[in-house]
């Protein structure tokens, strides 16, 4: 039998990327926290606070994992039993996934919205109540469950909420759960059959909305001293599938929250469709009636916290897969090879250019410059001299900086040769004595080095490089699932390449680059929960095209561009919709802190193209430069209504950044005849 590569690579420690696949044991095992109790992620969700909270986050932000971590099943695993857990943690987490209710069926089938509203609410409350009782059951002591007196008291109090009592009374806790289940099944059967029968007979709403959800915990507290101080937390996940009407019911529960009960409602960023409530429809008020936490945004803000979390996440996975056992939080970054930035990226830059240099072909950026200059400057010897002066064969990247400096400083009336010589001297000074010797030149270098390097890669037919653990952390932007996905793909590529990731040697830059590109594709194609697919992808594609056009131009106006400043209020409906949906999908990230525009007092909002997508267009993943987009341009790019117009807008914005227009715009003198001899008036 032919020998196959060892099984090591067959097992990718990062294969499973979503928390919902985990068992409760795995939720606990894979839980990774930062710091101590004060800084724990659990404090984000504040389970013992009675104030309801909407916990929002993109896919894979850790929202589900956090909510499940607070669920009774996992609480139980943290202690010897649930009763102890409740006593120590002072809450009971009743976790449920809203989608289990399959809410889409509460519509159509020949019935009015009104009818569906009350049936949905009824069914939902029965569901929550049954969940509550099942979650609590492991915490009840034998002498409560088996005691006839206790059971009778329980049943009596709970049935008080019912308008009509059942013929056969439930006799104990389990039968009570059974009873609620029977009621809900009856609703389900009637609802399901109505597709054909067109009727919804046989459903009577037996209690007032809210009575079970808030009433049952109250009853339990009365009957059991053990639960006197317990907060009952309904952790309801994934409510984005609820219709607006259905969410109103949820909001009403938030408003009328009472007793020792509270709610933690999980949804996608724009999954909450309304703040209105039923009846009068007065919306619930943020901070007064509920809190709002956007998990990934919060993690992005606490950057160092996220970094620690990221490292621990990786290590936990490696441990679980019995791989990389001799790696620590501190040594983890060393498992990843990185590009050497020493001496102004000399080694990498030479690497890129050397093979073509050997054939004697002029470097593309120089050739382009030469061509453009020749078109504008009649005297060939001047062109030659310019090229010669700006050339810097031993430092290709600085060579490009030279050109960039030239492009940025050139203007009408300037002596081009003198300019070139100054730049040459700056470069030399920098090389000899460091940044202080040529501060402006160095500034230019440090701002644009990553863009120029990307350009160099492109010119030589290669993909721009993203590598290193810190880069991975940055790319994932506070979303654990993204980080895991990056690692999964990097691991695959590394294994395919014959490496032994995390076991032996470093993961090559090549494997990282390929893996990151794979992960980018994955992120771009990842199924999103609504029908705005083309709108969102088109909008983001346009932004990215603009960013890319700027990055790869001969003289970019901004460095590391991936952010845009827009005033969302001024946008047309379609564009505003696209922007919002793109944010909902986390394709665009809103960057906190409104930024004043450069020239006046308008308040603009800053959006970044999610770094997870950066590789797709070869744009930067670091947030540095930003450009403002006025309404007309923003509308064109976002709405997708006029693709040709959008294209034009991009060209118009960027054409003076490219040769030859770049030089034409700056070199061609219109009025000074003294310079005329230098130009042939093209």
């Amino acid at each position, binding site marked *: 039998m032919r020998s*196959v590569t060892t099984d090591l*690579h067959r097992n990718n420690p990062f294969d499973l990327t979503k928390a919902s696949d985990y068992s409760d044991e795995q939720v606990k095992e894979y839980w990774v926290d930062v710091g101590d109790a004060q800084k724990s992620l659990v404090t984000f969700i504040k389970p013992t606070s009675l104030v309801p909270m909407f916990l929002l986050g993109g896919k894979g932000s850790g929202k589900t994992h956090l909510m499940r971590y607070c669920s009774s099943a996992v609480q139980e695993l943290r202690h010897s039993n649930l009763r102890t857990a409740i006593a120590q943690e002072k809450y009971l987490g009743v976790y449920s996934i809203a989608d289990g209710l399959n809410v889409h069926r509460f519509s159509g089938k020949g019935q009015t919205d009104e009818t569906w509203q009350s049936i949905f609410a009824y069914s939902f409350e029965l569901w929550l109540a049954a969940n509550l009782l099942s979650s609590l059951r492991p915490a009840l002591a034998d002498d409560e469950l088996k005691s006839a007196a206790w059971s009778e008291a329980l049943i009596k109090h709970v049935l008080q909420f019912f308008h009509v009592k059942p013929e056969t009374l439930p006799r104990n806790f389990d039968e009570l759960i059974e009873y609620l289940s029977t009621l809900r099944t009856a609703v389900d059967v009637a609802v399901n059959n109505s597709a054909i029968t067109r009727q919804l007979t046989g459903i009577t709403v037996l209690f007032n909305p809210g009575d079970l959800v808030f009433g049952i915990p109250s009853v339990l507290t009365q009957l059991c001293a053990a639960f006197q101080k317990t907060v009952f937390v309904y952790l309801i996940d994934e409510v984005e599938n609820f219709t607006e009407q259905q969410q109103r019911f949820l909001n009403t529960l938030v408003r009328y929250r009472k007793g020792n009960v509270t709610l933690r409602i999980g949804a996608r960023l724009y999954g909450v469709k309304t703040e209105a409530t039923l009846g009068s429809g007065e919306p619930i008020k943020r901070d007064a009636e509920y809190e709002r936490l956007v998990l990934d945004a919060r993690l992005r803000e606490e950057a160092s916290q996220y970094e620690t979390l990221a490292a621990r996440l990786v290590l936990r996975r490696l441990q679980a897969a019995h791989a990389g056992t001799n790696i620590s939080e501190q040594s983890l970054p060393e498992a990843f090879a990185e590009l050497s930035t020493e001496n102004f990226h000399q080694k990498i830059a030479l690497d890129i250019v050397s093979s073509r240099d050997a054939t004697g072909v002029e470097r593309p950026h120089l050739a382009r410059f030469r061509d453009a200059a020749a078109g504008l400057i009649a005297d060939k010897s001047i062109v030659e001299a310019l090229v010669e002066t700006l050339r810097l064969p031993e430092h290709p990247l600085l060579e490009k900086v030279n050109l960039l400096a030239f492009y940025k400083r050139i203007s009408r009336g300037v002596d081009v040769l003198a300019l070139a010589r100054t730049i040459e001297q700056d470069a030399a000074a920098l090389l000899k004595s460091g940044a202080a010797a040529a501060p402006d030149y160095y500034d230019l270098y440090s701002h644009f080095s990553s863009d120029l390097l990307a350009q160099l890669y492109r010119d030589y037919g*290669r993909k721009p490089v993203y590598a290193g653990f810190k880069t991975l952390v940055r790319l994932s932007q506070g979303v654990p699932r993204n980080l895991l996905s990056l690692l999964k793909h990097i691991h695959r590529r590394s294994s*395919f*390449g014959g490496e032994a990731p995390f076991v032996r040697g470093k993961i090559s830059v090549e494997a990282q680059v*390929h893996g990151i590109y*794979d992960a980018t594709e994955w992120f771009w194609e990842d199924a999103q929960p609504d029908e705005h697919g083309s709108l969102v992808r088109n909008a983001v594609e346009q932004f990215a095209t603009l960013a890319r056009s700027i990055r790869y131009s001969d003289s970019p106006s901004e460095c590391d561009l991936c952010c845009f400043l827009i005033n969302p209020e001024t946008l047309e409906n379609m564009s505003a919709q696209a922007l919002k949906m793109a944010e909902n999908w986390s394709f665009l990230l809103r960057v906190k802190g409104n930024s004043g525009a450069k020239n006046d007092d308008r308040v603009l909002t800053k959006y970044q193209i999610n770094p997870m997508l950066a590789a797709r267009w070869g744009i930067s993943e670091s947030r540095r430069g930003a450009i403002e987009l006025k309404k007309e341009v923003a509308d064109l790019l976002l709405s997708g209504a006029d693709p040709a117009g959008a294209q034009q807008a991009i060209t118009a914005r960027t054409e003076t950044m490219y040769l030859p227009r770049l030089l034409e715009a700056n070199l061609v003198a219109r009025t000074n005849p003294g310079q005329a001899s230098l130009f042939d008036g093209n």
Partner: protein
Amino acid sequence: MELWDALITRLVTLDERVWEGKASGPAVSSWLDNFSGRTGATADLERLHALYILSQFMYFGSQEIRVLLRALYRELFLLPLAQRVRAETSDTAEFCKRMEEERSATRFLGVGNPSESGVHLLYYFRQENGLSKGAFLDSAQIYDLTDVGGQRKRVPRHPQVKRYVFLDDICGSGETAIRYSNNLLPELLAEQPEVEVWYFALFATSDGLRRVVNGTVFGTCCGAVYELDETYKWTGLKSRYLSALPDGLHRSLLTALPLTYGSMLIPGHPLGYQESELLLGFSHNTPDNTLPIIWFEQEHGTSTTWYPIFKRYPKV
């Protein structure tokens, strides 16, 4: 560059999901190094085309082969049988009884020498389908030698068997089926004309199956889980591989490549045996109907050095 990257990306996925790790990066690199510009194109261009050829390779791993063996039994044999029996009765108990009877009267046999792949698959066939050992026969066990009027004669050893089902992994030209039909089965059918004989393969070319239907005692009692028509011939006019090519690939080079190098490896059969020109491999072996550039290795007889990507274990 982009096409190269895209092809490698495809290989990474295939290697992980289907190819059981047999074609990882270093192996692929070594295989590509085989191509050195013999066709006249540059080595780089040849390698790009070779990479494309590899990306089209169809490999069925051990798990897949097991699934196909189950499908062979279920869809080619069991379900049609059930259909016939069900037409006779609408009672569950009766149905089950008749099915059991029919199965008891059926024997499965492998074709070829016991050490050949057709026969070894029988083991998995038995496992996957939960059949007993008694359901299988060796060709030698079909007959008994008796004396009839002083003459040695072959007579059916198990007259109660109503159905003999022959199983093969790949039917390229139909040769094997023809051989069995001519050499093994005539006496059986002469003695017991009502006995059914069937021939099934996991893979069969259309040509091969046609010859089985027209030129053997199996007739229409044959079939394959996968029938590979002329579009599966690499250089065929209707080749499915050569239509809708991505930019950067040349049809002429794609046909020249396996031919040129194949001629170097197996002069008489540069594109594989039986003119099949397939791109097919299994976990247990690569058939010789597949392009030799895929499987040829030095041990096969010549002194040419060649690094195979999906090795073949020879039928010596």
